[in-house]
């Protein structure tokens, strides 16, 4: 099942979009990301719902203080691989903030197939194929990331991680664990300091044992 996220400050039409996709594409699920107020909230929700591709309404500043394109820019800073599409009621080319490439903009009318109008249905089908393709790419990259994560984990165990590697390791851990691809651990044990502390603790333990044996 492809998991498509949907963000809109006035999601009146969400049910219509969801039903439309459900009728036509059994392998696609449209998930409303609601109950969020900040960009961070939305990011958490994306992790929580294991979203693989995202649709975002453009005009939301009246409700959240930021528009869809700003939100996408933030999300992509955190999750480079998650492809995000902006949806708008006005003609797509009228968004001029330059934060989202024109190929990733769609009019909301894409969901209106005008009573099975052949051309409209084709357009929707093409768009959903693009979404599925984006989701597949996202999955593939996650797999790649998992391999990279495991490699970094080995290096970490042998104490070979540079500061840069350490940052990458933590970022990968966050994404992968959020998507349930690796076991989730308390954040405090992920740092090198924790390793050092643990090492110190073990050394102290050993010293105590040694002294006790003597």
């Amino acid at each position, binding site marked *: 099942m492809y998991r498509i996220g949907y963000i809109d400050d006035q999601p*009146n*039409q969400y049910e*219509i979009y969801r*039903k*439309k996709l459900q*009728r036509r594409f059994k392998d696609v699920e449209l998930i409303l990301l609601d109950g969020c*107020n900040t960009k961070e909230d939305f990011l958490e929700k994306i992790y929580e719902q294991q979203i693989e591709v995202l649709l975002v309404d*453009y*005009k939301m*500043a*009246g*409700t*959240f*203080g*930021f*528009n869809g*394109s*700003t939100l996408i820019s933030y999300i992509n800073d955190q999750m480079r691989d998650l492809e995000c599409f902006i949806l708008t*009621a*006005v*003609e797509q080319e*009228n*968004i*001029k*903030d330059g934060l989202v490439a024109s190929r990733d903009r769609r*009019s*909301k*009318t894409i*969901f*209106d*197939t*005008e*009573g*099975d109008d052949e051309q409209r249905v084709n357009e929707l089908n093409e768009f959903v194929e693009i979404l599925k393709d984006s989701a597949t790419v996202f999955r593939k990259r996650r797999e790649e990331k998992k391999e990279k994560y495991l490699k970094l984990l080995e290096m970490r165990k042998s104490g070979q991680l540079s500061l840069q590697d350490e940052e990458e390791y933590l970022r990968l851990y966050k994404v992968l664990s959020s998507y349930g691809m690796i076991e989730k651990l308390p954040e405090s044990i992920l740092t090198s300091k924790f390793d050092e502390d643990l090492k110190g603790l073990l050394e102290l333990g050993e010293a105590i044992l040694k002294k006790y044996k003597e």
Partner: protein
Amino acid sequence: MRHNERDIQFNVDAYTAKLIGRENVSKLEGAVLEIVKNAYDADSNAFCLYYSKSHNCIYIIDNGTGMEERTLREHWMTIGNSSKKTSFKTVGNRTQTGAKGIGRFALDRISERCEMLTISDKGGLEWIVNWADFDGNKNLSEVKARLYDTDETLKEYARVEFWENSEMSSIVQKLELNETGTVFRLFDLHDDWNSETMAKLRNHLENLLPPDVIDDFVIYFFDDETPADAARIVSANIDSYDYKMSFEVEEEQLRIHILRNEFDFGNQEEIVFQEAGIDMKEMPYFHGEAKPLKFTFNEIGEKANLIGNYNGVLYFNKISATEKDTAKFYYKDIKGRKNLTKEFGGVKLYRDHFRVRPYGEYGDNDFDWLELSARRNRSPAGLGHATGQWRVGSEQLVGLVNISRENNNLEDAANRNGIQEGPGFEQLKRVLITVINEFEHDRQVIGRKLAAYAKVKDKLQAELERLRQLAEERKRWEEEHANCQKDTQDTPEKDTEGNEDDNHKSTDEIPVVDPKEVLALIDSMQERQEQELQELQDENKMLQTLATTGIITNMFMHEIRTLTNNIGLELDSAYEAIKYDRNMEDAFENIKQAIVFKRHFASWFRVTIESVRKDKRQRRMYNIKEMLGDYINTWKNILDKDDIKLNMECDDNISFKCFPFDIENVISNLISNSLASFERETEKVLDKKEINISLKKAEDGFILYYEDTGWGLTPKYKDRPEVITEAFESDKCTGDNEEGTGMGMWIVRKTALEYEGDIDLTDNKTIERGFKAKISFGGKYV
């Protein structure tokens, strides 16, 4: 020496026969015309042409007399042998329109395969031909069509019951198709019958029949989607004109009736008639009575009538008229008039009620077949010109000329494209030009009198002219006087005598301009200038309002577009709920929601485009609270949907003379700015979205206090808020298309100034957030 005498037969290659047909009916429009003609000639009173996309075929039905086997063998199947060659009249007394016996090739033009059911009094016959059989090296006699006896009815054969267009199916089922008639089923169509083709053919059919002439022949033309009201072909009609000229040629006589519908003298009619010198006997002709004229052929310079009897009607329509001319010539108002020739064509020719192309066809070389443009170029004088002849323009004249097969010297050209050139056709053109000449003469006689009258009537102009002449005389006298003095100084001995004559010239004879008269003239001139200026200002205001409507509609495009999208989505969703889920409850909910959106849409419509409604373009005294009541309530409803509160307070006793759209536009512009501010991307969220409007009475007008709880002006304008009222200054920067036109606040200030008021934005310098404006009307109270 002759021997062995025998006959040898001419043979026609089947393919050549087909080619001859093709030559004669080369265009799809022509092919359809031939088929309609056949139905008309068969005395049918209904004709249907249905293109079924789903069946990929064309059904053609008529309820004419049908053909019996003999007619079918001897005429229908014999190329070039038409039953219509010899007998012109049908049983139903129609003049037959076809003659060459090639109409059936029209079917070949349309499709590859043709099946026909024809039912006459003698019973039904089915006839099937494959036009491809004509190809190859066969003699015509070798090509066969198949014929069967059948008892199928017309409706069964045309499968009316199974038509995709169910609305038309039920209409056609109700038509009188129970007895005789003909049905064609055409398969493997040669053309792409898309919407463009359909539209072209429809236009062709609309112009096929002359307006209001045939009431016993109905044409239906439709495809799977054509609604019933659009399927019936209605002849293009003319409902407004300045002049109507009907004419008829009977034996050696030409009668013309000229009907004037161009002038309106209002209640000044008698005065104008008297003062302009228009004969009182002419009066009825300005009130719906046609002026009759009668000429013999000799009188119009023709030796004899070469053609026979015919008639026609021509309409003259101005496409535009300046205000000055409208006043001068007492024209009726023609605002909004379209160029009829584009829609209706120019002067068109009909033979026995059917159009003869291409005469009068807009865009065709033969549109101006009477060469009216060249005639006008040779004599370009205006209507009021005292000596030059005014000539009508080719695009100002529409009409129709009815000829018949019974006429002489007007045969169809062999390629069915027009009439054969020759003495008959030339005479027809000359007679038409005579009719046009008479109309032009009639119009110009009136035009010249009215133009001369306008000059006399313009007292101010006359007075100005008198004083100008006086001034010139005075100037000349002064020059002469100066010369005399100079001469006197040069020759002092002549002085005394010389002065005798000149200086003793009686003071009455010296040209003098009276300063009082000059002052009065200047005052009058000023008054007139002010009047003209006021007219220009009013016009400017109208244009400004139209511009504002455009700007405001554009500002709210996002909202309007969202609503139209939503209405579409809900309807589509209802459609799918029924089609795929059989869920009536969901569909019902969707439709209910679409209705809610439609209501919102109507509200937007009310505050945008409707602001230029005619009744809002009247400047009169209004009670402002009453005037704005509905308008503000509509805004409240709209804003409520976005959790924006609009509060309005208005003194009860503000009476103010204004155009309602002016005040509404000011408020719309301010609200538009507030909405943009509420939606500005700031990374923060506003606690509340509120707009407060308060209108307080002032001495001669009122003050509008406006404030919102938005983000306020951007730093660019914060310290100098007045700059935003300049043209092309915009504070909207939401990144969406609404970057702002930079005209909104300019219009607000301009409107206030026009009402002797002003705008004050200084509060914005000090407030931390929000926007405030004080705008006065009727005086500079702010």
